[in-house]
């Protein structure tokens, strides 16, 4: 392999990153479903010919982390030498490098002079891929009930898509084919853009230089991560957190992490984590890996280090097979984000002991999937939105208010766009929740409440969430954040409290109140500056003065 000069390297690597970013922007902007176009639950990137991630559009951390794993599973079955121009690879298999069924990964090989130099990659969360219920089947007891599974496989775009057999197979098995096929097309187009940009770079600088840059970029990230690890205190640290329950019993699902920081590498062992469960809270290996990597990257390195395969090299993880974090097939995995967040939290708690200035306290840290569906005369109408909550506080900053949680980055759909698109519900309230955060020298971010009025009979609600039972814990004396809840205010005045994983039928006039809590505090509230307390009191985010109790005690 040739040696690249500093200029060629800088120019080509930045161009590859710019191409990945362009792919991501165009994936979102030409998408159809609210989950992809408004919530932006999709990602894109460029890979080298060996299946390593080179550059990514920074959209959803969870999807980005293990794209390499997902592609390599395809390449094991369809080696790179056997691919032909016009082929694409597809995979959403949770037990072969994928994450959960809705996240479909598509890879388009980039051919230059008859040889594959890399892949354009994209992933999108698809609104509905069939399965036992529209959008989200919370009762699934195995992966078959969660929707259409694409094992790592290869198709020809011209022959099998665009009216071809594979496209018709997908169309026939999903509830909102117009949106789903549209979103697949947006993925293919995003890949095509990446393919075109890499070809242009190869033309301009030569294929060997582009491939050398792809390799150097990974080495570069690896060097920077190792440099950051070298500065961290060495030793073994333990962290633990838990999912509320599996949706059937009241038993918490414990996640344990043992983090060992050595000279220039980090090992994370999840030994002691609970066994896999009967409902969809299992976390496939790829997702566990992604959550752990995201945490280490966020804590140890500055945000400008490009996320690629090299980033992951200094970090090894061990996950017992058959556990919650590496389940045996055919375990259902739809809500894998929830255990993935506990992975993030457990690793963060371990790192907090080594690097208290670089971590944040536990946030609400949960993906709340909120899905309403209605079967009308014109077919299914499915609405799915993802809610975060409040971030945990740090040594120097309050947690971010009302934002998607760290492993994800979904936007909200504008209320006005929901008013245009859906006639069976209406959002009637969307507000910050006072007192929802844990106080401390720095407070957690505030959570929020959404009120949703149902406008027709026979509407289904399905949710999965967490932290309805176990609140996020503070650091160094910080107070816990509030727990979440979901309530249905029936038209007749009764109120029904839902579990964090639930499905329920709704009727016209019902109002659903969804509350996601805030993050935990950092440090003792006695150390919180008066000005910050006064500000929150004046803004109505805090309704009780924490100094009042202190004064009382002093008297």
């Amino acid at each position, binding site marked *: 392999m040739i040696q690249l000069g500093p*200029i060629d390297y800088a*120019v080509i690597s930045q161009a590859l990153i710019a191409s990945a970013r362009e792919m991501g922007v165009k994936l*979102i902007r030409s998408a159809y479903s609210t989950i992809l176009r408004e919530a932006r639950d999709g990602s894109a990137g460029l890979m080298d010919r060996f299946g390593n991630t080179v550059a990514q559009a920074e959209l959803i951390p969870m999807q980005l982390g293990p794209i390499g794993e997902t592609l390599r599973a395809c390449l094991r079955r369809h080696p790179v030498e056997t691919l032909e121009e016009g082929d694409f690879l597809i995979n959403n298999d949770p037990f072969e490098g994928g994450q959960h069924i809705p996240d479909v990964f598509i890879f388009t090989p980039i051919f230059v002079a008859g040889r594959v130099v890399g892949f354009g990659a994209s992933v999108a969360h698809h609104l509905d891929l069939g399965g036992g219920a529209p959008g989200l089947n919370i009762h699934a007891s195995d992966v078959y009930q969660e929707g259409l599974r694409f094992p790592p496989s290869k198709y020809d775009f011209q022959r099998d898509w665009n009216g071809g057999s594979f496209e018709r197979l997908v169309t026939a098995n999903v509830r909102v084919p117009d949106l789903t096929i549209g979103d697949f097309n947006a993925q293919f187009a995003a890949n095509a853009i990446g393919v075109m940009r890499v070809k242009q770079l190869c033309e301009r600088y030569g294929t060997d230089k582009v491939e050398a840059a792809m390799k150097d970029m990974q080495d570069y990230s690896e060097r920077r991560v190792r440099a950051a690890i070298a500065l961290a205190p060495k030793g073994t640290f333990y962290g633990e957190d838990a999912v509320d329950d599996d949706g059937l019993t009241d038993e918490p699902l414990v996640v344990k992490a043992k983090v060992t920081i050595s000279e220039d590498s980090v090992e994370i062992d999840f030994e002691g984590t609970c066994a896999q469960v009967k409902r969809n809270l299992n976390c496939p290996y790829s997702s566990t890996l992604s959550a752990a990597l995201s945490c280490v990257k966020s804590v140890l390195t500055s945000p400008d280090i490009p996320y690629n395969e090299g980033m992951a090299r200094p970090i090894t993880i061990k996950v017992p097979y058959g556990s919650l974090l590496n389940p045996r097939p055919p375990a259902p995995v739809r809500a894998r984000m929830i255990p993935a967040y506990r992975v993030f939290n457990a690793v963060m708690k371990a790192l907090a002991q080594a690097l208290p200035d670089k971590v944040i306290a536990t946030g609400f840290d949960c993906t709340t999937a909120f899905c309403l569906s209605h079967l009308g005369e014109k077919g299914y109408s499915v609405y799915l939105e993802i809610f975060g909550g409040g971030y945990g506080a740090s040594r120097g900053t309050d947690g971010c208010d009302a934002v*998607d949680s760290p492993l994800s980055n979904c936007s909200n759909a504008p209320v006005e766009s929901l008013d245009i698109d859906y006639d069976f519900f209406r959002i009637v309230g969307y507000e910050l929740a006072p007192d929802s955060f844990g106080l401390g020298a720095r407070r957690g971010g505030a959570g929020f409440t959404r009120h949703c009025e149902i406008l027709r009979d026979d509407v289904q609600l399905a949710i999965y969430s967490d932290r309805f039972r176990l609140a996020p814990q503070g650091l160094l004396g910080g107070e816990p954040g509030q727990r979440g809840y979901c309530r249905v205010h029936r038209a007749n005045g009764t109120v029904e409290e839902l579990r964090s994983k639930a499905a329920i039928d709704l009727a016209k006039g019902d109002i659903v109140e969804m509350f996601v809590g805030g993050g935990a505090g950092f440090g003792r509230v006695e150390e919180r500056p008066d000005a910050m307390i006064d500000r929150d009191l004046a803004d109505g985010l805090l309704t009780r003065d924490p100094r009042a109790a202190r004064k009382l005690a002093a008297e």
Partner: protein
Amino acid sequence: MRVGVEVGGTFTDLVAVEGGRIVVTKVPSTPRSPDVGAFAALTASGIDLSRIKDLGHGSTVATNAVLERKGAAVAFIATQGFRDLLFMQRHDRRNIYDLFYAKPAPPVRRKDCFETPERLRADGSVETPLDEAAIRAKLIPALKAGDYRAVAICLLNAYANPDHEQRLAALITEALPGVLVTCSHQVAREFREFERASTTLLSAYVQPVIDGYLHRFEAKLADAGFTGRFTVMQSNGGRLPAEAMRQSAITALYSGPAAGVVGATRQAARSGYKDLITFDMGGTSTDVCLVQDGRPSLASESEIDGLPIRTPVLDIVSVGAGGGSIAWVDDGGMLRVGPQSAGADPGPACYGKGGIEPATTDAHIVIGTIRPGAFLGGRMTLDGEAARLAFEPIAARFGLGIEQAASSALQLADANIVRAIQLVSTERGRDPRDYALVPFGGAGPLHAARIAEELGISTIVVPPNAGVISAYGLVASDYTKFDAVTRKMKLDDAAAAEAGKTFAEMRARLAAQFADMKLPGDLDYIHTLEMRFVGQAFEVGVEIPPDRLGSLDGAYLSGLFADAHHRTFMHGATLDRAVEIVTLRVGATLPIGTVPRLDREKLAGRAPGQAKIFHDEAWLDCARYTAEALAPGQKIIGPAVIEGYTATTWVPPGWTAELDPADNLILRRSA
């Protein structure tokens, strides 16, 4: 006489044009009170104010009011249940791995946000009527108690029906005379409540500041005997009379870069070039814009300090590559340039003001394109040795010569600008090779040729006085106002006809506004339909040719849309999918008539000097010309350096340069 006064961050530029004569003046800006600097420029130019017919002004007053949080005390009112609209934002993060992330902070506190019972549906019909009793009983007393100077109102779905906002505004004005009330339907009649609310809030926030500033400015002008027309530049590339600007303050943000694009466009058009990529390379950043057929591209949204603004602006992309951008090596060993800048103080190492980090300007000195004794026409002497010293660590790190290190830094700065240009061209489906490159700003013409080579561009148009193009743009720009309205309808023949009708209404409204502004004359209109495939969330704007306005049909429009969609997204042209119209947009422009000439100051013939330039790994001997002494038609063969009063042009080997009758320096790449 026409005069443009552009207040920038560091310098205030003045261009005065009368007949064939041009006066250029540069004075330091006075950031605390920009009008002081503006008047200092007028004084320094020695112009008699009573002789000025047309005074165009651009300033950073509105921009700074937001960035420095010095706007008015403002209250925000939303539909009940949505008081936190401005804090919720879009629930996303700009940096996904930043644990300490904070959202962009709107210039309003939560305690100053209120709500009112009411709700409209998406079609504008009323779900819950406006509760006037509650407004009188609760909201108005709360507003009175808050002592606000301005109120911003954004109610859900008000874009579809402004009644509730209008009624609420009337009630507030009645109870609190003197408080300025801004409604979302006046500022941006488009859906997406957060973006509209943010635009409305920012507008209300800067309006009193702009109002006060222009008031002071006009009073000073009147005292000095000025009787001409006083106009203010907007971010959309057109001007408005100062009086009208007071009601449209939000369009005053970022007017400086827009003025530059207009100035460059106008000057290039004199030489017959109308498809352009302009790039304005200043001290800290470079602004890039694509111009199609003499008209700069527009974007329907921009942002300030992370907050969205939903009004049309020139589609300008900015990158942190300027004369002050610093070259550095990151902790992974990669050479980088910018976005950190040495600024004006301490400035690049060669300024001799204590800067030791190597900046782009230092690199030019090292490779010989800038002469330490001839910077800014000799008004500033630079320290060549300091520039070389600054590059030593980078040279040592990579085992390069000092010249090679400097040259590498320049190549990286160029690469950053190339990416910005790709963003406005290739990424929007335009091939940069179809465009002429128009560099301006102090450093633009030095970098143009290499950037053109990277992009395959073969023609460069260097305007005269490249350092004061923005000020020139102020007197060369037209009067412009935009109107937009969201009216979602599935595209068919009836919808196309409806669009034609709505366009006519919008034109009539704009014509009335121009009449109100006492700007008579025939208006030029640009009609844009923002459309998407049914189900999509983002629209693609399609301009409607004027000759088709009277005969719009569904098939024609969906064809236009599918082509535009395919150009950007590489799919769509063959899709058999329904299309919908989302937003209609009309721009009205009153042309200013004769565009003033921007000529170069002339000097008597002067023999070229010698220069040694480090280029492509070797020192080249070449000629050094003085721009003011060039004769029209004189052909210069690269390598050569052409020094001007406000900017220097580098003509590398393989390029020729020639001064044309419009006084533009045209660089062509030899075949």
